[in-house]
């Protein structure tokens, strides 16, 4: 261990994804979410709680903004609701946005962590090393989406987070986080690792559809698709291509067309240049049909 290691191997660990650096190979995990299909049922969120051993903090802490929902359903209302001209069926004006860590390619959270607890993996994931985290919460401060959740309390020892009868339900593949560390959506990295190892043992790469995230699996309307963006035949890569959303653009070419694009694909806060790995498909409005 020497300073030389640090100086010589720096470039190995610091990439300028995705613009100036070599693209990910053979995996770049990405997602696309069809907001038109999303019914706001929260199944994805529940599945995430179950899969990733998320603590259920209770009503009071939830109201305090201390919920640990890695996958959250955001509820938005159309502006005309509640006015006289508004719809008779206000629920039609509701729309939902499933929001989780966007696994940004140039993640604002990564550069600011003083101990390097959050890093970019070779598969294009934004990883969080719980054991390394010292809880400075700088990552959360710099996250534009505020999708990083901090263990404000020692949840494993908190009453009713996982009641006695439910301890068998905890997922043995996922660590339970102690107090004072940051956590967030991992794209179900435990599942990805199993699939990758299986594929490697058989001398191939992961097939499309071979691995699903918990939220994707639970979605009753199949609004979420997940897969390998490097594989052009994968569902997610085809969707991104159809929507002409490119990973390494902070402004999509299609949006520069006069009058804008009719395609529905967009990424949230793309203009901040975090290069998020989640594409959303805009909801088709009645007024637009």
């Amino acid at each position, binding site marked *: 261990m020497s300073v030389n290691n640090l100086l010589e191997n720096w470039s190995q660990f610091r990439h300028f994804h995705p613009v100036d650096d070599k693209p990910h190979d053979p995996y770049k995990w990405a997602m696309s979410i069809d907001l038109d299909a999303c019914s706001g049922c929260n199944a994805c969120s529940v599945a995430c709680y179950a899969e990733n051993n998320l603590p259920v903090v209770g009503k009071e802490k939830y109201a305090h903004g201390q919920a640990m929902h890695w996958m959250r359903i955001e509820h938005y209302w159309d502006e005309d609701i509640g006015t006289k001209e508004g719809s008779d069926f206000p629920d039609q004006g509701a729309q939902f946005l499933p929001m989780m860590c966007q696994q940004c390619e140039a993640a604002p959270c990564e550069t600011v962590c003083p*101990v390097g607890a959050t890093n970019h993996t070779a598969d294009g994931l934004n990883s969080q090393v719980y054991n390394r985290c010292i809880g400075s919460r700088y990552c959360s401060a710099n996250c534009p989406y505020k999708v990083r959740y901090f263990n404000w309390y020692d949840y494993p020892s908190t009453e009713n987070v996982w009641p006695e009868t439910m301890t068998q339900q905890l997922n043995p593949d996922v660590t339970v986080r102690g107090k004072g560390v940051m956590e967030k959506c991992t794209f179900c990295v435990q599942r990805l690792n199993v699939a990758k190892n299986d594929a490697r043992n058989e001398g191939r790469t992961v097939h499309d559809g071979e691995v699903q995230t918990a939220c994707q699996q639970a979605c009753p309307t199949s609004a979420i698709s997940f897969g390998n963006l490097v594989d052009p035949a994968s569902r997610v890569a085809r969707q991104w291509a159809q929507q002409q959303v490119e990973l390494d653009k902070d402004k999509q070419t299609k949006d520069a067309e006069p009058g804008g694009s009719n395609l529905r694909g967009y990424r949230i806060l793309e203009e901040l240049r975090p290069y998020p790995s989640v594409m959303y498909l805009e909801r088709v409005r009645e007024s637009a049909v």
Partner: protein
Amino acid sequence: MEKDIREDIAWAQINKDVLGSLEAPRPLYWVILLAAIAMIGVAVGCEIYQYQVGIGAANMNNPHAWGLYISTFIFWIGMSHSGTLLSAILHLMHADWRKPIYRFAEAMTTFSLMTAGLFVMIHLGRLWQFYYSLPYPDERGLWPNFQSPLLWDAMAIFTYLSSSIIFLYVGMIPDLAICRDSMHPGWRKKLYSLLSLGWEGTDRQWRNFRVTYLMIACFLIPLAVSVHSIVAADFAMSQQPGWHVTSFPPYFVAGALYSGCSGIITLFIILRYVFKFEEYMTLSILKKIVRLTFAIAMVWTYLNAVEFASVWYSHDQPSKDVLIQKASGTYAPFWWGMIFCGSIVPLTLAFKRAQTNIPVLFAVSLLVNLGMWLERWMIVAPTFSHGIYPWTWDHDQWPSFVQWGIVFGSFGWFVLLFMVFCKVFPSVSMYEVKEMVYHRSLHLKKSGAAGRGAH
């Protein structure tokens, strides 16, 4: 023009007056010391509770990831700056008037840095793993992240603190020798003998001393500027609205000098009164610091205006929203309080009568520092409450008693350190006051001689 110091003070008188401040304290000293310890007790209690329970005890939540700890950290870092201004920058500029007051200002620097460092620790979610942020050789080849402004912060503060301690100590050596020579045998005599490193005042020692002192002064000046620029970088390097401002580093440095200068005024007045240092801490010197403070106040006000204007005309909607939120939302009373205390109150310092009016100056200096504390809070909190992502806006979060208790206790910690310092070490530099008196008498002799020559 009044004199900064009388030229006819005898050197023995200077020794006697300054050493007098080291004599056994009055009962009130012990009362204040106990009060300070009680304040620290509150903070320690809060910290123990927070350590056990988790940062949740501080009542932070998802958008509000940082709170009063970071604000107060910036406040104490800021307080530390004027010591260096007075002792190092003015030393290089040969400003004689700094001599009677730089010692306690330098002590203030050291102690406020020691207070600020605590807040970095208190803030951490896993205090017990703080050493991960240090670049120590680790057999797993793990290093801290050198891209993180927080790491620069840790390094800058540590460097600044260690240099300040060395500077304070080196500058004190001739005085420690005076203490050694005039003390009766006892623990003090032993302490001063040890610390004065065998100082005898030979020519060779003085020459080495001058060079060393000058070198540390030169080393310290860029550090003082970089430390607060780096604290500003914690914010300016992020993407958050209200933080991502290019002018933050100079703005922070100006704010730091500002709060530090008013801290010096406060302590000047207290020491002058308590130790009866009227001969040395003269009103003429006070007037000079007050004018300096006024100038820095105006620079700070200007930089504030620059920041608001650049946000307002930037067409960066989230930043603009944060600014509007500061001026009209939940934080409006504090934000306007900051404007009032930071920009309006110091206008009184423009009046000649106020510049030497001790009760007015005392009140103004305290108000200014209240304003500067509010400023730091208004940098940190509103951005969290009203960030880029509207779904997570939270305008109602309020720091818990744990946060307030620790902030309260930090003042006790500072007071404790400072009070112990004042009784153990000479808070006025004896040898430099003598130099000042000597320079003045030389000057008078010269002008007298010139006057005679004209005949």
